[in-house]
């Protein structure tokens, strides 16, 4: 009997969300099949890879990574260099310096940096906050205003600040809203409901379901992504059809495998390579589980992951 290949194509689809403007704008989502299941149906928008930079510059980074940015003084220079790396689809500017428990930079300073970076690059821009809900809300409002028309994604609106972030970023300034729900699938859906109820179109929402480095409770991340995609496609759940973005850089570069020096643990080998491995492994696992975009830090991992995507789709 001849083999008949079963096709698993769904009538529902993931929303398509565009980021950026002009020639370099990107679209994420849009598929009606499981991740990389191109044999079941077309994946018009391959997953995208972003590169993360910080408003604090390169001072705190490992020497191996710093070398890639030699000669870049300002954050705008760093952004320019980041945007020119192989495989980069978008740049993510993280305002680590805004953290009230850290440098606590004033919002106005952050706005100035955001403007410089947006001027310096033509790739789509993603803005990541400092994880302090109150500060992020204030910061996002001003940055969203300053970058009007640039179609920027903000990470993220959380349970504590979704009203302020959704109203400013999504409604007042027409930017894209990321909803963050630290690996809590019910909260992921609830946030989408709440942000939509504010009046933000579901086409302007991206989900950050929460991340972890591979090996650090990562199975929860994977099962959450799996369940979300299943609900979106098989159950046609409109409140879970937003594309998924996984900003995994800080998780990956924060675990001991990525930071402990070679002198301390010689048998682990060079520290830079370990971080890159961690980033690639985590990114690929996220993509296989349904992430429509990943945000990485090391140019080597960006290049590798981007090539892998191009080979598969």
């Amino acid at each position, binding site marked *: 009997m001849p083999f008949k290949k079963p096709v698993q194509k769904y009538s529902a689809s993931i929303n398509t969300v565009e980021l950026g403007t002009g020639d370099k704008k990107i679209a994420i989502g849009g598929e009606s099949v499981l991740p990389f299941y191109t044999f079941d149906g077309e994946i018009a928008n391959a997953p995208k890879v972003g590169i993360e930079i910080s408003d604090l510059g390169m001072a705190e980074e490992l020497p191996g990574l710093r070398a890639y940015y030699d000669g870049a003084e300002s954050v705008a220079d760093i952004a320019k260099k980041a945007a020119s790396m192989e495989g980069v689809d978008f740049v993510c500017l993280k305002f680590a310096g805004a953290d009230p428990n850290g440098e606590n930079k004033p919002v106005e300073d952050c706005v100035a940096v955001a403007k410089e970076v947006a001027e310096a690059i033509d790739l789509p821009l993603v803005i990541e906050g400092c994880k302090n809900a109150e500060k992020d809300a204030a910061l996002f409002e001003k940055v969203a205003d300053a970058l009007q028309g640039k179609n920027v994604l903000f990470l993220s609106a959380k349970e504590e600040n979704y009203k302020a972030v959704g109203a400013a970023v999504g409604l007042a300034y027409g930017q894209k809203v990321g909803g963050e729900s630290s690996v809590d699938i019910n*909260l992921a859906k*609830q946030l989408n409901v709440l942000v939509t109820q504010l009046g933000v179109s579901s086409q302007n929402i991206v989900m950050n379901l929460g991340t972890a480095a591979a090996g650090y409770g990562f199975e929860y991340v994977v099962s959450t992504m799996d369940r979300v995609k299943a609900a979106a496609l098989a159950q046609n759940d409109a409140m879970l059809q937003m594309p998924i973005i996984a900003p995994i850089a800080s998780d990956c570069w924060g675990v001991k495998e990525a930071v402990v020096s070679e002198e301390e643990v010689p048998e682990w080998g060079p520290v830079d390579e370990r971080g890159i491995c961690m980033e690639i492994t985590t990114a690929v696992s996220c993509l296989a589980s349904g992430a429509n975009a990943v945000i990485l830090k090391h140019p080597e991992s960006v290049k590798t992951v981007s090539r892998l995507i191009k080979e598969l789709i």
Partner: protein
Amino acid sequence: MAKFIIIGERIHCISKSMREAMAKRDPEPILKLAKAQIDAGAAYIDVNIGPAEKDGEDLMKWAVQLIQSNFDNVPLCLDTANRKAIEAGISVYNRAKGKPIVNSADAGDRIENIDLAAANEAICIALCSKAGIPADNDERMQYCQEMLERGLMQGMEAEDLWFDPLFLVIKGMQDKQVEVLEAIKLFSEMGLNSTGGLSNVSNGMPKDIRHIVNNAMLAMSIQCGLTSAIVNPCEPGIKETVRSCDIIKNETLYADSFLEI
């Protein structure tokens, strides 16, 4: 396995205002009731024009186009004894949001409505009765088989036959209720879809307690595998019961605001 389907029953010529609106082709009252039911969670709207022997075809066409054009092609359940009127309704029906439902066939005089549904690629409600109330579930399941075979012979998919166990009024047939639930379970075990005029169970009860009984019967029926019901979704608790059952059966992912979406 899918979310439970509410078929809103309120556009029914038994109500005086609906009868008048249909006779005068007055859109307002009909659109108002359609909207109220859609807002309350109805996935399908039943359009009962009664026997409509005189102008059934014209009336059904008018009603189908009126409701679908105003509510994004909401799928409809065409409910009349006039077969020509059902065909006329289907001829102008937009399938973008779902197939039309023929309401209804039975195993007796109305069995040809299965042929009608098959010929028109429609869903057909198949009432498990021939003449009067089936004596027991052996009889119900015999009718179920007869109608299933008839549909399959005509090329229908089994999923397009929605079997109606015939919900019975509690006041008078209290001892038959569990049997109805068991019939639903039998349909479900065969992988069949089911539906029915569920509020019939509370017929004749004081108005203020009907919805309580209806909600209890609804939840119990859903647990037995009922996949749809013809009810008044505007009745207190109906939408909440159905949504909660969908959550409990894991048909849709829970979120705190699940009753609002």
